[in-house]
């Protein structure tokens, strides 16, 4: 390249000077973006990347929940093996099993009912008034009402499942709406749901269907209720153990007057 005329090349120095500043800006921007990414654990801000990250996390969570279930089952086996050693250990093990049953930490089986709930499978008719549009969707309150009614009629264990996960209802379970989906035990769930309850099948079914009960006049629009809810009596159902984290439960509450102060 031919050398530039020195008179005319003064601008190059000035451009160089600001290039230096630009380089600094560039480095700072890059470092900031990197630190944002590494601190949030999200690899990118683009939608496709975020969707993938979400799926990966969901898959990871599912694996971890499965692991919890496996480990709990193992602990159970060890406890039962210990329980055979002495009478004292046996009594303690029996007591422990009972407490675990109360807490929902072991899987249980028995007869009961299954309640299938799903969003209306067809399209919402275009002329539906806005006030009735919510009727075509299963809401958190529907599930809460049914769970409440089931417990009121002698249910001993309930789990709720969707396509991905099955969640045991325990004392601290919250069933809530988070925008487009539900959270049960802080796990995202979506329609269709199956509520599995162990208890007296006939009483449970009658309780749900009783006049002025929660499913009486539920979704008054013609043909909705029959598509969105189905109740089946079952001779044998399995309700799995609670698979969530238990170490973050009881951070604030401790036994009264015990020496173990929190």
């Amino acid at each position: 390249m031919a050398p530039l005329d020195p008179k005319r090349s003064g601008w190059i120095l000035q451009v160089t000077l600001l290039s230096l500043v630009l380089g600094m800006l560039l480095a700072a921007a890059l470092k900031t973006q990197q630190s944002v990414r590494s601190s949030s654990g999200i690899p990118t801000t683009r939608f496709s990347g975020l969707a993938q990250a979400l799926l990966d996390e969901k898959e990871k969570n599912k694996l971890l929940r499965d692991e919890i279930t496996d480990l709990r089952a193992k602990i159970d086996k060890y406890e039962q093996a210990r329980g055979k050693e002495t009478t004292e250990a046996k009594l303690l093990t029996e007591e422990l099993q009972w407490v675990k049953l109360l807490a929902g930490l072991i899987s249980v089986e028995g007869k009961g009912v299954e309640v299938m709930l799903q969003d209306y499978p067809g399209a919402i008719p275009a002329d539906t008034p806005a006030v009735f549009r919510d009727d075509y969707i299963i809401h958190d309150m529907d599930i809460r009402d049914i769970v409440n009614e089931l417990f009121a009629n002698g249910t001993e264990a309930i789990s709720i499942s969707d396509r991905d996960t099955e969640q045991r209802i325990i004392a601290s379970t919250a069933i809530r709406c988070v925008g487009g989906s539900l959270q049960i035990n802080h796990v995202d769930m979506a329609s269709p749901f199956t509520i599995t309850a162990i208890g007296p099948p006939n009483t449970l079914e009658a309780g749900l269907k009783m006049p002025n009960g929660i499913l009486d006049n539920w979704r008054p629009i013609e043909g909705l209720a029959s598509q969105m809810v189905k109740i089946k009596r079952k001779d044998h159902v399995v309700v799995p153990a609670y698979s969530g984290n238990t170490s973050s439960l009881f951070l604030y509450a401790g036994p009264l007057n015990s020496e173990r102060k929190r």
Partner: protein
Amino acid sequence: MVLLPLIGLIAGFIAIYFMDVTVPAGFASYLSLATLAGLDAIIGGIRAGIEDKFQTDIFISGFLVNTLLAVLLAYIGEQVGVDLFLAAVVVIGGRVFLNLSLIRRYWLTRIALSKKES
């Protein structure tokens, strides 16, 4: 001589990159926009230089004002809920491409000329 701006860019980059300087994450997008505006000013300066129209005051003030204006616009956009950020990116990005194409044309012409002479 021609490569000096590039060397300056790399030097500045290295200086900050290996120093322990961090900017709050909330400013990340503003900083990126400021960088883009700065790039536009530099490319614009180079173009003016090779066209013999370079003026120091226009160059320096352009760099400062464009950078600050872009950030200010993005900030106001965020406050009022309009993506003015995008307006800045589109306008500045377009200008960078335009100026780069002019610079490219200039160098290609020079190379063609020097080949003819030799």
